């Protein structure tokens, strides 16, 4: 028996079912459009990571974990108001500071992206990782017996904690790629018994694996969500 209080659950179920069956890329109500990816493909990302005084590169693998639809209901219609995509981004990269060091790092980041009704979306990342510095100049060490020797590959290991926030942009006609830009705060520890903060700018491009660049089709199923 269908109770009134259960209606919302059924509406939700219908909405999910519609999305699943039709594999919507986009949903639309009368005046808005939300892009919802049909599939959950992994992506590879490449980006510049540095700031105004030093440069760096990083590459990553993005694995989508979960997609959550936020649904708004009224008497006339039900619409997907917002889509939140959560994923895992594994990055490897480094940056180089002349006469100072090369910093290599490997990070695992939990990402959350709020897909909006436009092509531009907000996202945040929280990550952990490990880094290794390689000093840019020769390094000497004085042994206890007083002899002096060069240290090969001198540098230090640090644990990392990262926080990033930024925007992504998905071109209207090429949904398999995504441009992104964010400000990132890398923290390295233990650094002299404390934490070293390093603000970075991260600008790059993300490409879905196994998805042809220009052949991805997205269909608009406006009525599918209108109940």
């Amino acid at each position, binding site marked *: 028996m269908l109770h009134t209080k259960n209606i919302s659950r059924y509406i939700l179920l219908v909405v999910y079912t519609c999305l699943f069956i039709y594999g919507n890329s986009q949903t639309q109500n009368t005046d808005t459009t939300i892009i919802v990816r049909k599939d959950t493909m992994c992506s590879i990302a490449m980006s510049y990571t540095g700031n105004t005084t*030093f440069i760096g590169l990083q590459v990553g693998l993005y694995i989508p974990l979960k997609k959550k639809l936020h649904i708004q209901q009224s008497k006339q219609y039900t619409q997907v108001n917002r889509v939140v995509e959560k994923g895992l981004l594994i990055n490897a990269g480094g940056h180089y500071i002349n006469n*100072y060091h090369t910093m290599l790092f490997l990070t695992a980041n939990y990402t959350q992206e709020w897909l909006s009704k436009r092509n531009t979306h907000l996202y945040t990342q929280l990550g952990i990782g490990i880094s290794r510095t390689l*000093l840019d*100049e020769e*390094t000497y060490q004085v042994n206890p017996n007083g002899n002096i020797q060069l240290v090969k*590959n001198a540098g230090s290991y640090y644990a990392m904690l990262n926080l990033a926030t930024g925007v992504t942009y998905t071109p209207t006609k090429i949904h398999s790629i995504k441009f992104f830009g964010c400000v990132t705060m890398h923290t390295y520890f233990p650094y002299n018994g404390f934490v070293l903060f390093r603000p970075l700018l991260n600008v790059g491009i993300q490409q879905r694996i196994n998805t042809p660049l220009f052949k991805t089709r997205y269909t608009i199923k406006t009525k599918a969500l209108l109940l």
Partner: protein
Amino acid sequence: MKLFIPILFLLAILTACQKEDITLSPNANDIFYVRTNGQDLRVNVQGNTLSGIMVVIVHGGPGGWSSLYNTPEADKYLESNYAIAYYDQRSAGGSQGNAGNLSMETYSTDLKNVIAVLRHRYNNAKIMLLSHSFGGLLTGDYFSRFGQTTVSGWINSDGALNFAQNSEFGRQYLISYGEKQIALGNKKDEWTGIVNTCKNIPAFSTSSSELSTINQNGHKVEDYIDSITNKKSSSNSDYFAQQNNVPAASLYTNKYISEHSNFIKNEIQKVDVLQQTAQLTLPRLFIYGNYDFVCPKDNIKAYKNIAVYVINFSSFVFAGSGHSPMLNQPEEFNKLVAKWIKDNL
């Protein structure tokens, strides 16, 4: 794309390969690191490495940085004749790593290792130590631990040798000079506050907060004194970062760590190397600023009173300087240092 990460790592390793890059020239500019007690100390040698004379900058702080002393006047008068080693102490400037706890012993051991590496790299160059402020305390501690055999001369600019006594000199100078300014009506309100604060601090206090108050007021009052020329901020980190490719974030982090260390809170107040440095026989030049309230010129008298060998000891007070004569009167300072080195080597 799969090859990108290995290529990146390979490039990094290749560019970081350690090979000696020693320049013996009238215009050298070498950067290298000295690994000691968990820290990689950054050393930048500039100037005339052919001269066989290496002036090692032992900067102030703790938490300062050596290139602050790399002024155009230092280039002109010192680097043209001698090699200058700008080395950053642990948790300071461009040094990096994971140093652990700071202590006077590790600071001095670092200096010993830096001197050893400099002599190794530059054909046993004669070492002159040019210390400033905390660097004076550190250099004195170095001499008391390791002796003077590897060093040919010591220029101590505005350095403390007995921390507690030096702070007391500062407190007394702030009170006496402040009272004169109040009587003259110069910055009366500001000086009144400072004088009252200093009077409330007991003589020869060992409280870190009270000593810190004296130190802060000593720096602060330089703004009230028009006679101090060319006032430059000692926290000109942007200049440092630009000149030396050290990220400002690293610089500030190092500075913060040093200034909030247990060493600052608990150990530095007890350091007294006055008696030990009084035994030195090597040539010494003590330079102070007339308006230095952080490390007052009274330190000269205190040293002279107990110095065993005064025949090769000289001192100079710069009339228009505060705590940093190398910045307040850079022309006169570097000329004096260059001449003194020439006369004493």
